[in-house]
């Protein structure tokens, strides 16, 4: 005997009713009306969700509705009704050990996807992308930068020509990737900076060249940028942030979630983490190539220092932040897109020892 309401087909009129089962037959008895009977197997029972009222559609399209979920489950089990299998989900949702497993799995997969899955996928796709595609992407980027923050270089044409010639004849032969490298001179108000686009377009600012004490220092910076191109860092970052955006939208079901601080902060910290890894990778690439070319890696450390001490004029992409303090706090590290300058200088000096070791042999 299950208590509930009976609704005639498509109607909002309702009558108190009871549902009873006898063998393979059911009977619904609405209080002022005559009973409806039929085969239990012909009942259409809605799957159970929590404790919301259960809807049972009778063969005549009238509806029996009840809050006695357990009673219905017993009836389904006893009669072997096909809807009893729908109970699997409710079973998962109501046993704490399944919940604990689900919670653990969710945390693990979430962590693994963030930590390894997305970076791995970004890397694979970035390396698989044809060089031509990277060119199409970068064309527009440089255009936009030229219209917004970059101005034409004010360096003498002869100096530009000298640096470019050196870049093409000495630095490019150090690697054998199919990118069509292009060196661009630009002025970015008074900021010393250099950056690379995925296509191999490398931009260096006037101020950086002014700060460089010699050709070797410029070389070290350009090799660092070539390192970004060779390792497809730009592409990887674009792909990675696309994945993050999609994941956030999928999980929260909400496009505006990406602007929510609770979501944006971890994403920001994570992106910076990968950015720092990329910088270190590009640094190492530059050191190795400098060793190949017979340039002392210590020059990279020197130009980093010059940029840092100049940096109170603004943010630069090559050192990232303007802190020169060696006692940089841990917090600041997380907020930074670049490794700290002292760390990079120290790395350069380490490679430099390797260099002097080699040259003395």
């Amino acid at each position, binding site marked *: 005997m299950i208590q509930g*309401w009976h609704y005639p087909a498509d109607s909002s009129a309702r009558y108190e009713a009871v549902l009873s089962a006898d063998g393979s037959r059911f009977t619904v008895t609405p209080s002022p009306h005559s009973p409806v009977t039929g085969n239990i197997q012909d009942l259409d029972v809605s799957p159970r969700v*929590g*404790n919301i009222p259960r809807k049972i559609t009778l063969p005549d399209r009238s509806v029996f509705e009840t809050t006695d979920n357990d009673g219905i489950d017993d009836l389904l089990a006893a009669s072997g009704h096909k809807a009893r299998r729908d109970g699997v989900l409710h079973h998962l949702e109501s046993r704490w050990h399944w919940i604990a497993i*689900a919670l653990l*799995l969710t945390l693990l997969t979430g962590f693994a996807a963030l930590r390894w899955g997305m970076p791995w996928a970004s890397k694979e796709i970035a390396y698989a992308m044809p060089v031509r595609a990277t060119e199409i992407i970068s064309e527009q980027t440089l255009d936009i930068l030229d219209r917004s923050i970059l101005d034409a270089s004010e360096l003498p044409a002869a100096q530009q020509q000298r640096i470019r010639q050196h870049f093409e004849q000495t630095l490019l032969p150090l690697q054998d990737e199919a990118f069509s490298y292009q060196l661009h001179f630009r002025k970015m108000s008074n900021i010393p900076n250099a950056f690379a686009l995925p296509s191999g377009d490398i931009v260096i600012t006037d101020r950086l060249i002014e700060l460089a004490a010699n050709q070797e220092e410029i070389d070290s910076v350009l090799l660092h940028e070539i390192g970004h191109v060779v390792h497809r860092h730009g592409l990887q970052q674009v792909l990675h942030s696309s994945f993050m955006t*999609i994941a956030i939208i999928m999980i929260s079901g909400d*496009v505006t979630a990406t602007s929510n601080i609770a979501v944006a902060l971890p994403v920001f910290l994570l992106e910076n983490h990968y950015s720092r890894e990329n910088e270190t990778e590009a640094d190492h690439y530059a050191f190795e190539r400098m060793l190949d070319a017979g340039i002392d890696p210590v020059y990279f450390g020197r130009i980093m220092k010059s940029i840092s001490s100049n940096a109170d004029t603004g943010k630069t992409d090559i050192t990232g932040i303007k802190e020169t303090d060696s006692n940089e706090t841990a917090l600041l590290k997380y907020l930074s897109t670049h490794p700290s300058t002292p760390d990079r200088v120290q790395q350069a000096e380490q490679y430099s020892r390797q260099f002097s070791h080699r040259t003395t042999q």
Partner: protein
Amino acid sequence: MEILSCHDSAGCGLFKPICAGTDKFHSDTSICVYRYESRQEGFEMNETTRTEAEAATRSFQFTGKGGEFFRIWIVNLILSILTLGIYSAWAKVRTNRYFYGNTQVDNSGFEYHARPLAILKGRLIAVTLLLVYVLIGQLFPAAGMAFALLLLLATPWVMWRSMQFNARMSSYRNVRFGFNGSLNDAYKYLLYIPLIPLLTALLAGIVMWFVTGNADPGAYVPLVVTAFLVTYLMFPFLQKAITTYYIGNHRYGQGMLHVDLSAKKYYLIYLCMFGWSILIFAGIFLTAAAAMYFSGINIAAMLPAAEGEIPAMAMAPVIAATVFVYIAMLSAGVWIKAYVKAHVRNHVFSNIQLDNVLRLESSITTGRLFRFYLANILLMIFTLGFAYPWIKVRIARIMADTTHAQLAGSLDQYVSLQQSRQSAIGDEIGEAFDLDANLDLAF
């Protein structure tokens, strides 16, 4: 027996409600309460229903529980992850069924009927579009803009389909809802009218350019600024128009929902919001400035020293002040959101009626919503988002608690109308791009 009705007061709370001090002032909600009979034209009861109506205030109830929904949510989440998102269609149906089913009035719950497979199909299309959009946007900004423009043009259609689908998939007491709004009106309110100021400015700019030949972009700035200003000024009117379109075109069986909103009321709410904002932000800055002044910190004197070392001790009060201003601004922003939401919701819900049988009442307060929003931010941060199910249950409970239905007749007479079947495509594209979130009317 007295039947309560929240008749809108002067609104702001900046001023006292017009009924303050009289027996019509309801101190919990700061609104004026009038007798039901004096309320609204066109809501007359015939003799047979009058006796029934006198005792017929029914409260909405939400019977769901945070722990129970957490279990459903976490299973949904892990199964969605393990099936690479495919299960999310089933997850959506289970979630909606849970919230509809637990929202009850007059001993009956609502019901959600969408089939997971229909939703899955729409969702696959939506995700494909989203992927294309994100990739194009990242790789080719210009093409991404063109794509976004196309999406913008399709938006009213998607929302219109979404409204139809959601209405058809909902029922109460075995009778389905429906949506009768026309596609033309959807375009009118969601696209044409909102764009009028900007298009007018564009046209005026072109005419100006032809007449004066002035190529200096600076000359056109006032035109653009005016267009944006007019767009903002139109916002309350638009919100009223869209809400009226959305609710007023809903059916319950053969019955029609009516909503009688006042644009004046909307403008009053936003005007009050504006007034409060100025007062609050001025207050925050004055407090911060006064604190700095009395603690003897002189920012100007510190600026030349910025090149050298600033002792950490000297920075501490500045950091404290910054943190104070930040938290105060954040809370103020949340409070303003709660203020608008509470007042708009009360105005809308208190003016909805079904034929002459049922009328809704809403009496949510700014304070209650404000505490809820503030607690959410903290909860979400400190639980890494795992508090989400409890938050969702809590807001459903708050909304149900503050909503009442007044029955002036019998609900027995309604029957579902036969409806043509449509796919979930519009609905799901709408969901992936969060288009119907701005309507913010879902119960």
